[in-house]
């Protein structure tokens, strides 16, 4: 019974991880950058929300979405693209991304303090059968489903969405065909950054917020999107939920502080034994 409860909690957490991870996946497809600065986007969205939500929740929502989008756009325009123009390696890009995360996290802790921030839990919980589920968890699952389906629709049905999937398949071919790779990268960075907003807000409601959360969430997003199989959104979602579930269910056996470590170990083991990920993309040959 407890296990079932933990399973539900795990799915809720995993749903939020999935939202963070698909953003990273989209950005990786188009820019080939391990966008660890996604953690910075998360912090910017969450802190904007926290500081504005006293005035109006709606204003806070709009504000944090805008902030995330602008940051993502700026990252591409002022960091990734200039570096890519001089044809530097992935590691150069990654280090620059990491540097940005460090800057943002510390500017935030100068401005807002390095201590934890919390939001009042808004809605309490409901009883479903023997399960106690918080409303936040339910909202998290619903929001994740809605956003992921929306993303799926975008990728399947719009011209730009198809272009993004093409990038995941074969970037060089996209170049050869004369498709506008730069535009796709811009779209992916803005879209990916916006997708992290609901994750940032809801996670803040559940777990609170510190400047250190940025690196943690970005690492989760990166490892999840790689373990899921590069080029595969479904894989990212599956491994995000797997991570959430393992994290929570493992507390049956070990202290809760080991949760993430156990979850990561599972994902690392998957990568060792199945380097192409949970759901590998179709082979090019």
């Amino acid at each position, binding site marked *: 019974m407890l296990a079932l409860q933990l399973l539900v909690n795990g799915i809720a957490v995993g749903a939020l991880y999935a939202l963070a991870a698909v953003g990273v996946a989209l950005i990786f497809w188009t820019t080939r950058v*391990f966008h*660890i600065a996604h953690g910075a986007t998360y912090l910017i969205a969450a802190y904007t929300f926290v500081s504005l939500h006293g005035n109006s929740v709606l204003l806070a929502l709009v504000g944090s979405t805008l902030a995330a989008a602008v940051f993502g756009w700026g990252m591409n325009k002022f*960091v990734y693209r*200039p*570096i890519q123009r001089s*044809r*530097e*390696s*992935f*590691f*150069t*890009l*990654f*280090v*620059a991304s*990491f*540097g*940005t*995360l*460090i*800057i943002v*996290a*510390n*500017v935030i*802790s*100068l401005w807002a303090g*390095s201590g934890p921030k919390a939001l009042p839990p808004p809605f309490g919980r409901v009883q479903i059968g023997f399960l106690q589920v918080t409303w936040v968890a339910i909202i998290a699952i619903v929001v994740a489903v809605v956003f992921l389906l929306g993303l799926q629709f975008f990728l399947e049905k719009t011209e730009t969405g198809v272009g993004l999937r093409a990038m995941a398949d074969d970037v*060089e071919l996209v170049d050869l065909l004369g498709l506008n790779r730069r535009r796709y990268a811009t779209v992916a960075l803005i879209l990916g950054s916006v997708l992290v907003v609901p994750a940032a807000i809801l996670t803040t409601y559940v777990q609170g917020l510190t400047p250190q959360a940025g*690196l*943690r969430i970005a*690492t989760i997003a*990166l*490892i999840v999107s*790689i373990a899921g*199989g*590069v*080029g595969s959104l479904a894989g990212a979602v599956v491994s995000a939920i797997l991570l959430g579930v393992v994290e929570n269910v493992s507390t049956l056996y070990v*202290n809760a*502080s*080991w949760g*993430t*470590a156990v979850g*990561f*170990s599972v*994902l*690392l083991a998957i*990568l*060792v034994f199945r*380097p*192409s*990920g949970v759901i*590998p*993309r179709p*082979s*090019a*040959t």
Partner: protein
Amino acid sequence: MLQFTINLLIMASIAAIVASSLNLLIGYTGVFSIAHAIFYGVGAYATALVSLHWGSSLLLALVVALVSSGVLSVLLALPAARVTGEYFVVVSLAFALVASTVFAQWTPVTGGPAGLVGISRATLFGIGLNSNESYLVLSLALLALVTVILYVLIRHTPLGRSLQALRDDPLAAQALGKNPFRLRLTAVVISAALASTGGVVYAGYIAFVNADGFGEQGGVLFMAMVILGGAGTLSGPIIGAFFITLFPALLEFADLPSQAKGPLEQIIYGAALVLLMLVRPSGIAGIFSALSPGHWRRARAVAGADAGRQPVTGVPVPGEYTPTGGAA
């Protein structure tokens, strides 16, 4: 003031030892690890445990540190062999997060969040290294030793040449009889063992060990030292380590509220990383090398070394697995 300077130099030398050993991976083997602080930590904890249970012999602590970090590093090397290049960055980051949990939570061994206290200063051949000055000598001597080992390994051994060949072109290296798995494994083990010696000095000097700095935060810092200084050069990581350790000390003299200093330091080196990547990815050593001709040419960045390499035509390569499905 003198003690303050000595303290800084000791910490900088320790950092330089770890950064130089990490450079063997990032700069010379093409394995991009952010997990290296783990082995620094293993060295520190090993020393603490030796000191608490078996006494203060430096040599014993070194042996235990070398062996335990070498053995543990195989765990990291397994994915390094399977997951190549760029993906390993993320794998190592995840590794570092797992390790920081282990350091902080495995209370029976590591003392948990409280850490291990009461570590004594080391003795070498029966002589106690009790003063800070003697630790300065120890740390500088060890840094010199590590640098010499790396120099000989990289410039004058077949192994060093093979590692660099693997870094520059794994496929061609394989065609010339190099086993990528075994080479990466060897490099990771050697590099981890060397890094642990930094932890040995650290634990004896500070006399206290807890999980701070041995997880992802520390890992990022060491990576930053290597990159800022210049990967793939012997001097680069040392320059980077001294820069990152000493530069914040200047802030000590600035009139700033104390809680602002930490973040400000971090912002400075974060900004240095971003700017350097935008302007000159070969690091500070790369800037020097651009100014002076001749053998300094070696100093060209590895961070940018694979730029413009022609794509592999044709074959999927067994043994060169990447999660992109390239090995399908």
